[in-house]
């Protein structure tokens, strides 16, 4: 059926044809024709009005991470477009599917420094999978179809469509919409090479101390069950990256913990004892490897990933398989012989025990003294039956939440890993709740990060989004303070924070809130928070000296792990 409609109308219809039912955005001059058309589509396309364009991008990320579908953002030109840069960069680093539509001045004004004109395509090219400027209404359907195909396939990522105002108002014949399923220069789902599989299977079968490193790719591929099946058949311990957390349930006997700078001791130390590392959907980020020169000296490395530019980028590999994680794991499983690695698995017990004695006991189960972040996180996790979606901001709050939450379901953690964007958490938790309304969403944040995007409390107010906000408040920029304490002689340059009354602010936004000053108040506060019908914030008073351990400082050996300010593992 052909009819003449405006470009703005064509955009909205294209989005609806792509299965979009929710967008996050903020109107403005250069995008007003789209917003005018949106008014007619209120029943089929829901728009969430954020309070700052950056909030729209993080909300879209939260939505995408919990559903697996692309988050969609609509903003205007100029400063709005520059405000979404952080979110776009964050989505690229953390492989999150997102389509960002920015308004743009009309084509005759391009390049004349017009009002609210910026070179969006130029700025976003290094930060996105694809950036395209739509100048003619007849290109809209093609561009949108391509955008969704690129954003959501292969290694997912952000796509930017810069939509000029005259393209929005111009008329076009809108044919039946065709989704894009082929671009000849783009192969999102590579054919898996049988020889590579065979080589990898042989290496796994021959290994005596193998370890699986599970990353975000496993989650994106929805390969959690395949991962468990492989690990169980080969009796192989599994460690997760920050973004790979919850790809295996925390209670699974083969799950040994988190990798990286603030990960668990066992996985980090045994990386250097392993004779085979099987990396699945992870990219050997420097937070995981520490000093690459001393990383995994005894191990051959198998790298399974959908992005072949990651092979041999940071770490030299012995074998690679280019493909989708789930598909590779399913093809590998029949080639793996059942094995038992009882002695090797037992080698994870001693570091776990030391970590419990030296770090976890005092952090999570303190008997006296001020409340600790680990203690609060653990109690919240228990109170939610380990079923909640954990959203974090960035810093100590992030590391404590990642370490001490326990995960029983997949897609249970949403955090800014690669870019480490403070302020990510509040809008991301809003997007996550909207994408998974039936799950409890617990958002852990610090006093610094919360204030970076605090305006999004207004979004919670407007949409009555039920987010449980746990503010781990130490009146400091905690993570930087930790570094200043350990390495810069306690010179706390620009890290103490003079904070407002957060409870008053929350209540001003119609959000239930209470202060938690002492340990005795904690359990009750958590229960009130979880039982409350609607958003609730608990402002927990944490001592500034609470630090995240274990810690492998950047550039150091994965084998030289700080247990506290004075002791390292292994203990002499």
């Amino acid at each position: 059926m052909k009819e003449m409609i405006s470009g703005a109308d064509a955009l909205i219809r294209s989005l609806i044809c792509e299965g979009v039912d929710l967008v996050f955005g903020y109107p403005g001059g250069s995008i007003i024709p789209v917003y005018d058309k949106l008014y007619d589509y209120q029943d089929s396309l829901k728009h969430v009005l954020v309070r700052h364009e950056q909030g729209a991008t993080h909300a879209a990320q939260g939505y995408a991470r919990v559903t697996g579908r692309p988050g969609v953002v609509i903003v205007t030109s100029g400063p709005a477009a520059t405000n979404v840069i952080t979110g776009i960069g964050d989505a690229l680093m953390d492989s999150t599917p997102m389509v960002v539509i920015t308004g743009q001045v009309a084509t005759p004004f391009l390049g004349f420094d017009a009002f609210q004109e910026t070179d969006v395509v130029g700025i976003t090219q290094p930060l996105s999978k694809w950036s395209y400027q739509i100048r003619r209404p007849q290109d809209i359907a093609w561009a949108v179809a391509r955008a969704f195909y690129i954003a959501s396939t292969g290694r997912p990522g952000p796509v930017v469509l810069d939509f000029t105002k005259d393209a929005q108002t111009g008329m076009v014949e809108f044919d039946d919409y065709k989704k894009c399923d082929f671009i000849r220069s783009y192969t999102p789902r590579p054919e898996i090479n049988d020889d590579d599989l065979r080589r990898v299977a042989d290496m796994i079968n021959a290994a005596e101390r193998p370890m699986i490193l599970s990353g975000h790719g496993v989650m994106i591929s929805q390969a959690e069950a395949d991962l468990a099946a492989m690990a169980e058949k080969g009796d192989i311990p599994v460690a997760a990256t920050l973004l790979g957390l919850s790809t295996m349930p925390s209670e699974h006997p083969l799950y040994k913990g988190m990798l990286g700078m603030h990960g668990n001791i066992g996985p980090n130390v045994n990386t250097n004892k392993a004779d085979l590392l099987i990396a699945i959907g992870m990219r050997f980020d420097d937070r995981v490897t520490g000093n690459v020169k001393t990383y995994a000296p005894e191990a051959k490395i198998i790298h399974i990933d959908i992005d072949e530019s990651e092979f041999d980028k940071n770490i030299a590999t012995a074998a690679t398989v280019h493909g989708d994680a789930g598909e590779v794991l399913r093809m590998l499983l029949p080639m793996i012989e059942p094995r038992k690695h009882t002695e090797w698995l037992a080698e994870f017990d001693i570091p776990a025990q030391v970590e419990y004695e030296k770090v976890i006991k005092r952090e999570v189960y303190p008997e006296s003294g001020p409340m600790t972040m680990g203690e609060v996180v653990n109690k919240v996790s228990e109170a939610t039956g380990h079923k909640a979606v954990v959203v974090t901001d960035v810093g100590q709050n992030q590391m404590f939440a990642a370490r001490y939450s326990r995960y029983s379901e997949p897609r249970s953690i949403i955090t800014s890993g690669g870019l480490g964007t403070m302020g990510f958490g509040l809008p991301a938790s809003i997007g996550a709740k909207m994408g998974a309304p039936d799950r409890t969403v617990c958002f852990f944040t610090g006093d610094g990060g919360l204030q970076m995007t605090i305006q999004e409390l207004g979004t919670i107010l407007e949409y009555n989004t039920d987010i449980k906000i746990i503010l781990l408040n130490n009146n400091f920029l905690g993570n930087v303070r930790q570094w200043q304490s350990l390495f810069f002689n306690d010179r706390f340059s620009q890290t103490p924070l003079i904070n407002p009354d957060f409870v008053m602010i929350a209540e001003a936004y119609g959000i239930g809130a209470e202060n938690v000053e002492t340990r005795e108040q904690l359990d009750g506060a958590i229960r009130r928070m979880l039982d409350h019908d609607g958003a609730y914030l608990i402002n927990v008073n944490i001592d500034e000296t609470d630090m995240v351990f274990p810690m492998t400082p950047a550039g150091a050996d994965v084998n030289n792990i700080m247990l506290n300010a004075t002791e390292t593992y292994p203990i002499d």
Partner: protein
Amino acid sequence: MDEQLFTVTVFSENQVGLLNQISIIFTRRCLNIESLSVSPSSIKGIHKFTITCFSNRPMMERVVKQIEKRIDVLKSFLYTDDEIVYQEVALYKVPTPQLLDDKNVELIIRRHNARILEITREYVVLEKTGHSDETEALFEELRKYDIRQFVRSGRVAVTKDTHEYLNMYLDEQERRKSHQCPAL
């Protein structure tokens, strides 16, 4: 690590913005592009970039992989000088009086296999095709005549390999397209 001159060729769809996307991959890694040329390839709708850069092999292999990741890039290849047949063009603008005064002019032009593109009363424009060291050598010889302007084109190159990898890639993608199930 050993640095040498690498040639990177890129085949892309003929779309606006590819040049920027490719060059920022170099910029980001502080790689200085020695020369760059772009033109339509022999296949309709496909553009070819030829970029030279001094660096080491591991770095350049990473760069080529990142270039191939760009959506509208079809293929990118990495070569050292021994793997390709390459040329560049140089133009020299020299004042006519000095040139005509010298009896050796004919010898220079003959020895370097240069061509005269234009002669006026004031200046002569010479052209030479060859490798950089050859165009450089002519430059040195002409220096005493007070070269007014000099320009070198980017490198153009074809491979010595008997396999035509781009054509193989395009055939493979055609096969993939015809085997694919239509989207819902």
